[in-house]
């Protein structure tokens, strides 16, 4: 029996039999189908995934003509994380000129709208200068990050302290107060960058604090679109499943807790978003083929449901990419090819 060299979801190399790899692909797509109430991949699609996983190639590639648009979250500080003293202007020029970036995103290292609000006047001059230097569409991006609004980091009571005490209504009330504050901060910061000439706003890592976080992003999007009909908004998620931290929040009559990507995108569309960043989480104790089949299944359902562009989140720990700091390029490349060609994503 031929052994196939692949990886686990934590990035470590394993060797598995061909038959086990095929089983992992089938189990991965079935897991997504069962959890999301969506169709599993067809046998042809599973066979294609099998070919990609067994290729043994250092790099894979989509067929010519199938290339997609790349958008980013936090590229202005990825260079500095390597210990290279490049300021944000230089970093984004490197992305545009050296990395083949289709879009750029300017952002602060403390990647939250609440944290940016008091220093936005310091952010704007550099952002304005950057528009003169670059050609690709330039976003501003940050997270709603509702966790920052609760004590001790913020003014609102902490639901994580209230819930163990059985104070459910008080916890829900705290989340609702945090939503209002978050919406105000997102609208304030995004307005500043719209006036400064941004090509778009990225509301990123949405849902990190569960359904209140998603609610804040949707309400902020609606308010911004009302204020600036020409403003372009990308909403990127934090996880595949909206956690019910509040549990009873709705938007347009839809309960937010428990929504998967193909359901999330419809709310983003209705709110006025132009690009949706779909997430499928990687499970570290499952193989890369299992995670890949699962990611492709969820993402394919999302692009089929969407009337707007869908960009798959494919960084560390999402989109079948392993949870490890130095990413294995061959695995990233296999996942990139599969997600574009089978899930038919509009971008990454």
């Amino acid at each position: 029996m031929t052994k196939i060299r692949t990886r686990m979801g934590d990035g470590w190399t394993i060797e598995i039999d061909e038959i086990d790899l095929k089983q992992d692909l089938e189990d991965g797509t079935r897991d997504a189908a069962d959890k999301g109430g969506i169709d599993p991949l067809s046998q042809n699609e599973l066979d294609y995934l099998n070919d990609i996983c067994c290729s043994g190639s250092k790099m894979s590639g989509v067929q010519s003509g199938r290339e997609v648009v790349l958008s980013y979250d936090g590229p202005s500080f990825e260079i500095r994380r390597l210990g290279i003293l490049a300021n944000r202007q230089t970093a984004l020029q490197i992305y545009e000129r050296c990395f083949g970036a289709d879009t750029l995103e300017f952002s602060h290292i403390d990647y939250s709208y609440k944290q940016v609000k008091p220093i936005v006047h310091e952010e704007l001059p550099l952002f304005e200068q950057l528009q003169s230097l670059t050609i690709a569409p330039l976003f501003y991006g940050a997270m709603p990050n509702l966790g920052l609004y609760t004590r001790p980091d913020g003014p609102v009571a902490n639901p994580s302290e209230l819930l163990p005490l059985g104070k459910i209504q008080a916890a829900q009330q705290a989340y609702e107060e945090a939503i209002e504050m978050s919406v105000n901060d997102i609208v304030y910061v995004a307005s500043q960058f719209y006036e400064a000439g941004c090509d778009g706003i990225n509301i990123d890592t949405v849902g990190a604090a569960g359904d209140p976080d998603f609610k804040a992003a949707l309400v902020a999007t609606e308010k911004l679109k009302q204020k600036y009909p020409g403003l372009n908004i990308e909403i990127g998620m934090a996880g595949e499943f909206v956690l019910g931290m509040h549990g009873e929040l709705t938007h347009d009559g839809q309960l937010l807790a428990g929504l998967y990507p193909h359901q999330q995108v419809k709310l983003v569309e209705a709110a006025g978003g132009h690009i949706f960043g779909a997430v499928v989480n990687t499970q570290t104790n499952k193989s890369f083929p299992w995670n890949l089949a699962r990611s492709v299944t969820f993402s394919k359902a999302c692009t089929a449901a969407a009337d707007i562009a869908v960009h798959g989140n494919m960084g560390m720990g999402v989109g079948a990419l392993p949870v490890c700091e130095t990413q294995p390029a061959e695995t990233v490349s296999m996942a990139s090819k599969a997600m574009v060609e089978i899930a038919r994503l509009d971008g990454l």
Partner: protein
Amino acid sequence: MGTGDPAGVAIAHAMTSGMGGLRTTGDLVARMQITRGMKIDTAKQYVADKLGVSLADIHDAVAMRETREDLRIGLLQSLPGQPKGIEAKHNIAELLGLELNSLRASKTRIKG
């Protein structure tokens, strides 16, 4: 896209499945997704029609190097006499029929 070391994530994606940005027409296709919410195939066709080239050509780095120079919409290389940065955006806006917010803001800053 998501986080990760650039060689492992950003460059790997760009080489595997990215449009290529200024090397081809990735920035232009992105503008149609951003401004009109277009899906990828619709956005590519729109850009190809506006450039007057084939769908295959908009992915071709050599062909687009010439086309971008002819249309003065910005090049990867920094060459004398060619529009750079916001200068190129004026021609992109006209070519694609878009009102770019960066140009609106720039005019506001100039006039005060």
